[in-house]
Each structure stands twice: as structure tokens, then as C-alpha cells.
């Protein structure tokens, strides 16, 4: 994720810092940890998700601060499986060569 030395992480990624305009920015690695900030359970399939209904769409507050959307795997797809603040960690889904960040509970070994 791009990071401005003075103003921090830039997400969604942009070539410049939205606060001071500095460019270019250096890309730095995050810890891959975060917590669930919000979620829904989709009962209608989105593009490419025809066989997955129902599934979680979540917002994750990364440990470093930036907020990211993803899907949550590794728990039953019920409202009771998730609590706001639940710790999660990133893993990557390979979609035809594009590596997409996804989320699972800390300690889970689920992959796609």
C-alpha cells in the first residue's frame, strides 16, 4: 500500500498523497492483521459469485488503519459467526493471475 512519510497510508491507492500532494509514494507492506468493522451477508449473487450464495462481504479495519472491503472465509455463513471487532488476517485469492486480498479469522488456515 502506498505510504506518505508525513501523512501515512493512502487507500484506495493513488500515485500521490491526498493530503500534501507529494509524489511518487513508496509502497510498504502491512501486517496483514485487522478487525471486522462491519459486514453483510449477501443473499443475491454478485458477478462471479453465482455459486457462493450466501456469502459475507466485510469491511476490515486493518491494524495500520486503512479500511478495506473483502469477503470473510473460514466461518459458517451466519450472523452469529461474526462480531464487530473480531480479529482477522489477510490471505490472497488468485483470480486468473490477479491476487485479491481476502480475510479469515486469525488462526484459520482456509485458502481459495
Amino acid at each position: 500500500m502506498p505510504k506518505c512519510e508525513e501523512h501515512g497510508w493512502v487507500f484506495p491507492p493513488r500515485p500521490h498523497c491526498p493530503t500534501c500532494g507529494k509524489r511518487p509514494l513508496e509502497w510498504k507492506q502491512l501486517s496483514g492483521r485487522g478487525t471486522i468493522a462491519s459486514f453483510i451477508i449477501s443473499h443475491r449473487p454478485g458477478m462471479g459469485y453465482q455459486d457462493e450464495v450466501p456469502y459475507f462481504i466485510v469491511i476490515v479495519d486493518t491494524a495500520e488503519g486503512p479500511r478495506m472491503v473483502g469477503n470473510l472465509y473460514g466461518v459458517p455463513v451466519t450472523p452469529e459467526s461474526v462480531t464487530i471487532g473480531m480479529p482477522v488476517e489477510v490471505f490472497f485469492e488468485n483470480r486468473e493471475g490477479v491476487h485479491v486480498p481476502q480475510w479469515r479469522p486469525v488462526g484459520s488456515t482456509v485458502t481459495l
Partner: protein
Amino acid sequence: MASGWIDGDSVKQEEIVIVGASESAEIGIVPDVSAMGLAIDSALRALDDAGLTPADVDGVAGTMHPAELALQLGTRPRYADGTNVGGCSYMLHVRHAVAALRTGMASVVVIMHGESGRSRVGVPAMSMDMTAAPGQFERIYGVAGTFSMFTLPVMAYLHKYGLDETALAEVSVAQSRWAAQQPRALRQKVLTVDDVLNSSMISWPFRVLECCPLTDGGGSLVLTTASRAADMDLKYAPVVVAGTGSLVEGAGSSFMEDLTSFRAFRESSAEAFRSADMNVNDIDHLMVYDAYAHLPLYGLEDLGFVGKGEATEFIKSGATSPGGSLPMNTNGGGIMYTHTGMYGMFALQEAVRQMRGTSPAQVDGVRTSFVQGVGGMFAAAGAVVLRQP
């Protein structure tokens, strides 16, 4: 902070009024009229309110291409506004028209909306832009529609205030009481919390009766200066645009500054109140754009009508229902009345009806109305305050 109004007493003094307001003859499911046809039908009806014809119009605004709107209506306007920040664009069109009319850029502005959201007549196929930020970072995760992204922040809100999914159902229940009095509403049944919770699941915690239906419809407003209006043959007393505000916050719901409060609601409403020289105690009637049932909760709190976390209790108490202290979404809202895709025009139409005393669900003695719009998915907001002359 800058007031957002053009300085200079001469500019501020002229009152801007709504002299025409109409929806298309048909709304809801209209399979035989194009989006443009719905817009133009409503525009001609709105002009008729003021005894005007297209030849009198020198300003056009809308989310459709202003040149096409002008051609179809039959005018060569000096002033054109194609602002499109989603469903609240019409609130911004009102705001911009006020400035244009005050500065002489136009003398009669028509703001038009037409959308064939359900029947898709005369509109390009729907497509999602996958290159913009929401496409790259939200929609790739199985977002099937606005119901699986606009809704996403709500669990953060409910969790923060110790609420559960019945909070959303209360919104639909209250609004169904208004919709039952509205013959043009798509959903007219008075609902209970159980009715709502037992309706089909769309995007947990949202049931279908907490989501807007997709419909067809048009609506237009005609604005001019108070002095020009005095010379017109008006069917209804003019309605004064007392104040406006707007803010563009970001690209989508996950990019909100705070998942439990919408900054663009807060700032656009504050500016609208300030420019109208009013506060919440001055407001008799409220419209809060409700594509989904959580928006009136955010709206009541962010506009300052209730404290943080108090909106559910307020709605549950009947305060926003018929007979309550703050009648809200008296057309039944986007969820019950109609939702063409960009609903803001219909919230404005109901506010004008309430000011004119012509709503089928008329509230007695409405002197002021506050109309709060949202655009995109928590991306932008526009507010308009109306008052009697």
C-alpha cells in the same frame, strides 16, 4: 468555514421560488414511456403550474445530458447544469439554480428527472465501472447491487448503539403508515415489524421491505425569482428556497470517514440550516432520502433532530409517523413510494406538495420542509430547506 453563498447583498436579497412542481402522469411500472419521455412529461406539467411554456425556459438542469433535455423540451438555454453525483443531484441542481437565478444567468430554470429504472426503456444497459475506486476495491467482492454495498456500514452503526435488526424494520413500519395514504405509492400496505422481518432476505440484515424497489418515473421543478413569479399566473402559491447545502464525501460506503455517521449529511445539512437562518426547531416536515432503511436513522442523527443512537427509539415512538411531532418521508419514502434509481426528485416533490397543501397524506400547517438527499452510496449529499413566502 465559507458559507458557500455568493457574497453581496444585492445577490442575497432576491428570493428564489419554486413555481412549478410535478411528477410524470404515471410512476411505478411504466413499460411504454422512455426515461426522456418521463422527464419531459413531468417538465411540461410543472411548467403548466406557472402558466409557462418551453419558450419561457432559459435554464435546464438534470442528470441526463442537458443538451438532450433542452432539445427534447424545446429550448436553447443560457444556463445548463448536468451535475451528477447520484440521487441527490436534484438538490444540487436546486442549489445551483438559486445562484444562477440570483446572478442573472437564467430567469426560469427547469430541473428534470426521468428514469426508466425498472422497465429500462430508452436507457443504455446497466454496467458497473470496474476501473474506478469502488470497482477495484469494493465491487470485485461479489457486490450484486446497491443492496450489498450501500448497506455495508450498518452493522458498525447497530453495534455501536447496542441495536439489532429490528431498528431497520421500525423505519419501514413507520413509513408504511404514510404510504397507506398515498394512492401512487408502489407499496401501500401498513406493515408490522414481523411483516418486515419475515419478508425475503436480500442482504442480511436487510429484508426486501427495507430496500427500495426499482421503478420508472419522472419529476420536474420550475424555479424563478420572486419578482418574476409575481407576474406569473400561478396555480399554487410559490414555495421559497430558503437555504441549501451540499458536500461530496467520497467514492463509496467503505470510504466513509466514519461508518456510523455520514459527514456529507452533517455538513450539507448544517450549511442548509445556516443559509436558511433556521435550526431543527424551525422544521415542520422532513424528507430523508431512504434507498435503504438505515438512511433515515443516520439522517435524523446527522441532521441533529435527535442525539447519536437515538433515531430508532424516536421512530418507534411514532414521532415520525402520522400525528407525530416530526412527520418524515410522508410519501412513504423511496422504500414504499417509488425509487427510479435517483430518488431525490421525488423527495423534493413530496416536500413541495406538503408546502402547497396538496399531498394525499397532508400534514396540517406545514410552514417549512427540510429535504435531505444522498448520492451514490454514502458518496455525496445535498440539502434543501423550503418555506412559505
